[in-house]
């Protein structure tokens, strides 16, 4: 029987499967489907300081094997999320990760500080890569300098492991990853969504009010896997890979290129029980390939 634990350095997860921010609601929604304790960890929908109503609909468009989203980080704000986390923590021992958002550096810092102080929170993921906040999809993770400044600032106020989430919409994702590492990030996660466009031929307008939106789902897997591989080879901190995962084999592909763990996003929408199916498939696949534990293949791609 394969051993599934995933070593993040600063902690070990019971398995490498972590539902991704924005695709797993606030956790509780999945209680009808499975015991949350089965997960490696879980990440809550991105949170700002204050409640946000999000973008006007439509917020989602289906694309071939993917979705474009422009949710715009609708959410209840930090206060309300603290309550939700307390309630959730009472129901599961799985590490809870808070996805920290901000319109500016100060908000990132504030929100990070709030949740760093909560005993129920295991780690923070700094979402410096959301394409749906600023017009044109701009975000701090497109720039190594901004990333470095922001991570350094946040690190000063938090006492929890800090995962920095990167954007694929940059020329030099490796440079940004190194900047995050240099600024003290404990881990890196990638990718957030790719900037894409959908248009409404009848109205002759973009489908989304923000024009651009973020592409996720199976369609992006080959692109995301390439970026995760490149980053894994250039940083020493653990990397959490994601993009288009729908199966246990997909997870092992990410581990093979160097990821320590993975996140699964869009698949949670079309199959609420996906996380647990995937965990089962990882084990079955490892047994079939006679892989005893993840470190046996992690980063072992011969390229």
């Amino acid at each position: 029987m394969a051993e599934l634990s995933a070593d993040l350095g600063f902690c070990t997860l019971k398995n490498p499967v972590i539902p991704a921010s924005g695709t797993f609601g606030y956790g509780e929604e999945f209680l009808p489907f499975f015991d949350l304790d089965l997960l490696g960890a879980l990440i809550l929908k991105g949170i700002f300081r204050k409640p946000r109503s999000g973008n006007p609909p439509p917020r989602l468009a289906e694309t071939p094997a993917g979705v474009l989203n422009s949710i715009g980080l609708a959410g209840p704000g930090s206060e309300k999320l603290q309550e939700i986390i307390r309630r959730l923590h009472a129901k599961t021992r799985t590490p809870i990760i808070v996805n920290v958002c901000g319109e500016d550096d100060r908000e990132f810092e504030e929100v990070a500080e709030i949740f760093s102080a909560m005993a129920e929170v295991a780690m923070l993921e700094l979402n410096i890569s959301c394409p749906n906040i600023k017009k044109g999809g701009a975000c701090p993770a497109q720039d190594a300098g901004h990333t470095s400044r922001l991570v350094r600032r946040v690190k000063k106020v938090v006492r929890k492991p800090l995962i920095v989430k990167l954007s694929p919409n940059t020329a030099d994702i490796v440079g940004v990853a190194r900047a995050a590492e240099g600024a003290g990030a404990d881990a890196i996660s990638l990718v957030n969504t790719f900037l894409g466009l959908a248009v409404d031929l009848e109205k002759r307008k973009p489908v989304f009010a923000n024009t651009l939106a973020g592409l996720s789902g199976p369609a992006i897997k080959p692109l995301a896997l390439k970026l995760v591989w490149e980053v894994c080879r250039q940083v020493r901190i653990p990397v959490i890979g994601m993009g288009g995962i729908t199966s246990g084999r997909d997870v092992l592909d990410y581990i093979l290129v160097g990821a320590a763990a993975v996140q699964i996003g869009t698949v949670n929408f079309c199959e609420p029980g996906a996380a647990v199916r995937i965990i089962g498939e990882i084990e079955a696949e490892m047994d079939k390939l006679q892989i005893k534990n993840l470190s046996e293949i992690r980063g072992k791609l011969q390229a």
Partner: protein
Amino acid sequence: MSLHLTKGLFTAPAKHGIMRGMQDERGLIVEARSLDGDCRLLKIAVPQIAAQAKPGNFVMVRVSPSLDPILRRPFGILQSEPPHIWLYFQVRGRGTQLLGSLRAADSLDILGPLGNAFPELAGKKILLIAGGRGIVPLFHYAKAYAAQRQLLLLYGGRSAAELHLLEEIKAMPFEKTVIFSEDGSIGKKGLLTAGLEKLIAEQRPQATLSCGPEAMLARLVRMLKPGKTENYASLEALMGCGFGVCHSCVVLAADGSYRKVCDEGPVFPLEGIQWPN
């Protein structure tokens, strides 16, 4: 703008009762029928979902085992006769095309029951207003409650070819049934809203439950006198997940907040929504 529920305006979503019971169940099609106007009727064995479905609930159907289309499609429950539910839908785009090509003995994944339900409105006289395939949740409601409630039905559509289930409707104990078609090919000619005032004046229902195109619901809200009847509508929206996690299915409420149609709805007080003019 706030995301807190405005008490009173919105009925507390039946969510925690119903959503608990939701299942991702493998369904088996036991009957598939093609109707005029590119409509289909599917009878599907889903014992767990059928046992729990309440009028107004819907399901999310995986129309293909492949990764494209990746999202499920939402459909109302026309009728629940455990272990079966019935779906009734129109072929529109690729998803409904795929679903419409399935046959008896095919199987598919069905998530449900989802959403809140219509309020029960026990003991009231209720007018059901169905535009086209909006008949679906109202048919379910009538099947479940016609024996214990006084129900009226106002049902309209483009033409005879798009108005189905008329035999079944005739067999149900409606107090009165009025049919409209835009082209006059069946029932009275015109939009069903043309018959609304007369029906209300004559029958004096205490509540209305409606489902249909947005334009119809918008017209209703302008015609129904506030306070005279309690009015609820079942809404549609593009849905990514159907169980409250993607936040894509929002509709703008009268109080300026966004409401998720999938788990705060699909049934809302008609006046609780901002309708286009």
